[in-house]
């Protein structure tokens, strides 16, 4: 039986819980340098689903992210949890991408991997909350989609004669619905789905400690435009590094991408302006706690169709 292949799409996001005034650049794009970067929470839920399927069915779990070289951190975090293979899409040509251009690059990466049976990603990223990249990646791959999945009910792994199938339940307004799809299929996963496992201490020791000790210039390998692969190593019993996983790095050439469809150039949307709520927030308009004050407020709310 061919092995189940799962690709998990993840994103490193600025921690929107701690936004400050310099969070945005003048051109309206995000100033990531000003914010701590974290693993997008629902992408961790997606990775968790992949790792659980791996336990049940046996699977090769490949994690893909697009971002600056520093985004390799979410790939490391993925390795710490049990991913088999990690891929970093990084290139100046990818910069400033909206969801359409992002999904284009991600879909090319899945294609370059030879496609897969299941693409999993978080429902949405906390920096944009758009929930668009999942469906748009599915469309470009020609894969069906089930979004907002709170539970994967059943997976029938592909056998030699069949493509396999997945059944999943998604939350809808005031209820839920269960959908079944043939594979391949893309699922977007919500935070309700599971409690993501923490990093495995053993895997952290395997990948992280070694990177600092045995390969002190480890990070720089991602910055080297000549290198398309950097190895994550562990120390063997003899104290020599033993390579266990590769952080593969792909640029627009590796993806054979149409440059016009990438990054800012490939993005239909533009940010016209940004208004900071944190700074612009005004105090509540205080209303006198007497009959006249309250009556005037009620009148205003009715006039503005707030109250019917």
């Amino acid at each position, binding site marked *: 039986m061919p092995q189940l292949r799962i690709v998990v799409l993840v994103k490193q996001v600025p921690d*929107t819980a701690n*936004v400050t005034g310099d*969070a945005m650049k003048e051109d*309206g794009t995000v100033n990531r340098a000003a914010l701590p970067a974290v693993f997008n929470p629902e992408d961790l839920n997606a990775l968790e689903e992949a790792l659980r399927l791996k336990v049940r069915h046996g699977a090769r779990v490949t994690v893909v992210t697009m971002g600056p070289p520093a985004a390799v951190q979410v790939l490391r975090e993925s390795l710490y949890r049990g991913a088999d293979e990690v891929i970093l899409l990084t290139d100046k040509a990818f910069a400033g991408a*909206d*969801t*359409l251009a992002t*999904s284009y690059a991600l879909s090319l990466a899945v294609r370059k991997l030879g496609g897969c049976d299941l693409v999993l990603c978080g429902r949405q990223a906390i*920096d*944009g*909350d758009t*929930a*668009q*990249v999942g*469906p*748009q990646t599915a*469309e470009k791959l*020609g894969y*069906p*989609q089930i*979004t*907002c999945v709170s539970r994967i009910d059943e997976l029938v792994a592909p056998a030699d004669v069949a493509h396999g199938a997945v059944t999943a339940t*998604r*939350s*809808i307004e*005031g*209820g*839920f*619905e*269960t*959908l*079944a*799809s043939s594979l391949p299929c893309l699922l977007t996963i919500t935070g309700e789905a599971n409690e993501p496992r923490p990093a495995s201490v053993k895997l952290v020791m395997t990948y992280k400690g070694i990177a600092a000790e045995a390969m002190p210039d480890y990070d720089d390998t991602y910055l080297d435009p000549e290198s398309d692969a950097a190895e994550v190593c562990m120390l063997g019993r003899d104290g020599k590094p033993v390579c266990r996983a590769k952080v593969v790095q792909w640029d627009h050439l590796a993806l054979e991408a149409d440059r016009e469809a990438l990054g800012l150039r490939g*993005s*239909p*949307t*533009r*940010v*016209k302006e*940004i*208004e900071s*709520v*944190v700074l612009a*927030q005004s*105090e*509540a*308009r*205080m*209303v006198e*706690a007497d009959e006249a*004050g*309250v*009556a005037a*407020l*009620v*009148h205003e*709310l*009715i006039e503005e169709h707030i*109250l*019917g």
Partner: protein
Amino acid sequence: MASPGDVWVVVEQHDGVAAEVSLELLGRARELAGRLGVGTGAVLAGASEAVRALAPALIARGADTVYLADREDLGDYLALPYTRLVAGLVRTHGPQIVLYGATTTGRDLAPRVASALRTGLTADCTDLRIGDFSAQGETYSDLLFQIRPAFGGNIIATIVSPEHKPQMATVREGVMVMPEADDSRTGTVVTVPVERSSAPVASADRIVLTDTDFAVRLVKRVQEEKRVDLKGARVVVSGGVGVGSREGFALVEELARTLGGVVGASRAAVDAGWVGHEHQVGQTGTTVRPKLYIACGISGSVQHRAGMDQSARILAINSDPGAPIFSVAHYGIAGDLHKVIPLLIQAYRTKA
């Protein structure tokens, strides 16, 4: 009459009942179209008499043309066939703006359509306007300003799609004013020709559903009868510790009843046993975004604010003028809620 450059709404319906947000969007589409001097269109798909019967209601709310796709295989919403339908209609008729409700359905469909059409899309808008946009020496007139919170609600962004048509957005429920139904409005119902084929058909001017579009099938849909519909409420009146007692909470309930709203509560009020957990608003309760949220005797913890700060309008009543709830409120009344609530009830009964 339908013409290129119209403003469209993709209507969401379940069992022949249109989603409220779709009707709200028809009202705004009407306004935007008036500003642009074009017509409005509504895309309606389904497979029942009730769905066909919706067309006049959509015209009454502001649609000039209803594109009706009435087929057995479009009976249940599914992303792929609906994408084929909407993208095909857009290619044929060339609307300049296409709007969707920011529901789980709208947010499933709209991105897939945007990808198929290679056009821009802004999610979860709270406002839409028409205006001009200048960048790099170019000025674009009459663009759709797509206004939405981003970055965890810390910023409000105005997004435009200057060079791609149609301009598309999903819009939150409850942020647009529901238009009055005007049964004297006239419009056209266009029956959309949709074909079905086992293999893909390469044709720009026909809408052909293929078997691969039905790779996903609906196994079951369950609508839970919720006793407390906090999420769908247009007015939520919540009480907190400041209410003081179970008896005090009756006042909160009376205000909610008077305004046609639903009773909410802070966690503290639930923990005190004054009201059931199903009423709890906040991070561990329900997230609400009604048109009006009235917080009575709620200090405004971060956890509570996370569940209500997207409300269109917030009125806070608290005896402590320094309570954090006032920092997210639009209106504040610093006073004793036991005196203020009766004043509100009285004022509303007199005015309405």
